[in-house]
């Protein structure tokens, strides 16, 4: 990780520019991408479901989007932002991404690291000393609901009518 700051800045810019072009960048409020405010992520309407479900999740008060989805160190964070920025902007512009959005690959690893970095005290016994082992026990295998509330596959059973909506359409 011997990159100097200029290189990083370049990487960030490149990622965004290649992916979007200035117009989309502004349209999608690309600048907000550098913020840590969860609302910034939701500027893309495509992120709205995740934003809404995050608000109902157990971590709502303790972790924002970037706490879970971006590396916690400064350098790695901006590299990831550049890379994701590229994908997000490209996806948003071309509308060619897979829906529903499903987290994958590298982003899953970042997530795992972030769980562990907050919860290390509790879980270090599960790691035999090396919590970076790619084959470590995956937190979201069991705790998939922490960031975005109960998953649809465990949606709380059939609706028992508690949150009955009115008969008429909104």
């Amino acid at each position, binding site marked *: 990780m011997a990159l100097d700051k200029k290189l990083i800045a370049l990487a960030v810019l490149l990622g965004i520019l290649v992916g979007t072009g200035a117009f989309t960048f502004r349209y999608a409020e690309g600048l907000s991408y550098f913020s840590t405010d969860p609302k910034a992520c939701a500027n893309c309407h495509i992120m709205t479901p995740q934003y809404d479900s995050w608000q109902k999740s157990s971590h709502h008060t303790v972790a924002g989007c970037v706490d879970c989805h971006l590396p916690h160190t400064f350098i790695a964070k901006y590299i990831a932002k550049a890379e994701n920025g590229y994908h997000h902007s490209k996806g948003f512009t071309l509308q060619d991404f897979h829906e529903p959005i499903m987290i994958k690959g590298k982003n899953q690893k970042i997530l795992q690291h972030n769980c562990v970095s907050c919860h290390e005290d509790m879980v270090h016994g599960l790691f035999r000393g090396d919590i970076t082992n790619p084959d470590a026990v995956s937190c979201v295998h069991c705790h998939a609901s922490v960031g975005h509330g109960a998953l649809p596959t465990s949606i709380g059973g059939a609706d028992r009518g508690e949150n009955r909506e009115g008969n008429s*359409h909104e």
Partner: protein
Amino acid sequence: LMNIFERKAEAKAPYVRLVEVTEDTTDPAEWGKNWPKQYDSYKRTALSTRTRFGGHGGSEALPEEKIERDPWLKRMFLGYAFSIDYRDRRGHAYMLSDQESTERLSKPQSGSCMHCHAAIMPVYRALGDGDALVGMNKTHKMSYQELNKMVHDMGHGHSVSCVDCHDPDSMALRVTRPAFIVGIQKLAESDAPVPAIPSIDIWRQGSRKTPYDPNVDATRGEMRSFACGQCHVEYYCSSGMPLTFPWANGLTMDGAEKEWNETEIKGERFYDYKHKESGAEILKAQHPEFELWSQGIHARSGVACADCHMPYMRDGASKVSDHWVRSPLLNVNRACQVCHHIPEAEILARVDSIQQKNFDLLQRGGAALMDLLDAVQTAKDAGATPEQLKPALELQRKAQWRLDYIAAENSMGFHAPQEAARILGEAADYARQGQVEALKLLK
């Protein structure tokens, strides 16, 4: 299942009404002027689609080619109109014309048939002086041709239409079909378990002074299945009695069998047809999708028909329900992956594994049934009396009912995998028991 993804989008893009629609507006094109996105997708039900087990096949049977390969199906139906003609099952757009052109109509059919194949509500109301149930109860004695003509003459010769599922004022989802309302009320009044329909449990705990009313008591999630349960159900439909959904003992295969066994028509125990070879009094099963679904894990989990068959599709910033009702396997990302975050290939492999197991059991049951029919024939040839044959024929009735229940159901058992396998296991056992009974007559 509304709670997963906020439906904010709807609020953001309220529709503009360009034309007025009423209870009598059965032409979907009219509604389409107000809700063009839904109408556009609705029209696509005229496109033909196909999957391994879906999108084709006779309504109560297996894919057409299969019937040629599996003559047991044809033999099983001997004596019934269904052995005459199977057409390709198609999209909703065709439901009326397919019915009108089936050769099964060469045998006289009852007006009840129209209940599920046309936008018939205004006709029921007209016949019943405003009361649709009264109206419907007059139609089973009418001939199919007579009622069909009436529907067309009154201008309602359309397939299932917007007004059948939506309140024209509020656009709220609703059920309209009288046979469904009567059926679900019977179910509510019974004490059969209803894990998939909690609102019935809630109603049961109340005073029960007013009957269970799906349009009032059901949750929105439940309505997303009830809309389909108006038609995708086992029924009895002939001139002998009004169209009936057999739910007084619950939504299970066993419950329906019990109801049919206890039903009398003209003083006789009810049957759909007498088997042409054996003379057994056979029960015919028709598309019990709603019932089988209700016995599965998805239903228990609150997953509705519309979740899989009419998933939301993103349309710019808003979401609309895909009215192109079809096999979810043609649409895995929206139909399944919203809930199951796993690759499409794995989802298809899971479905295939489930369907293959049920398909194999179905063939096994079919083979057993053929052996039963052979044994009965041999016994008859050897001079067995009808009285002596009775035990074997009773077992044929039980076996066929179970086999047909899954053959006629259209998901090849996906809607409730273990339940489907259980039913087919019982089918084979009963068919073999019948074979044994027939063989014993040869001693």
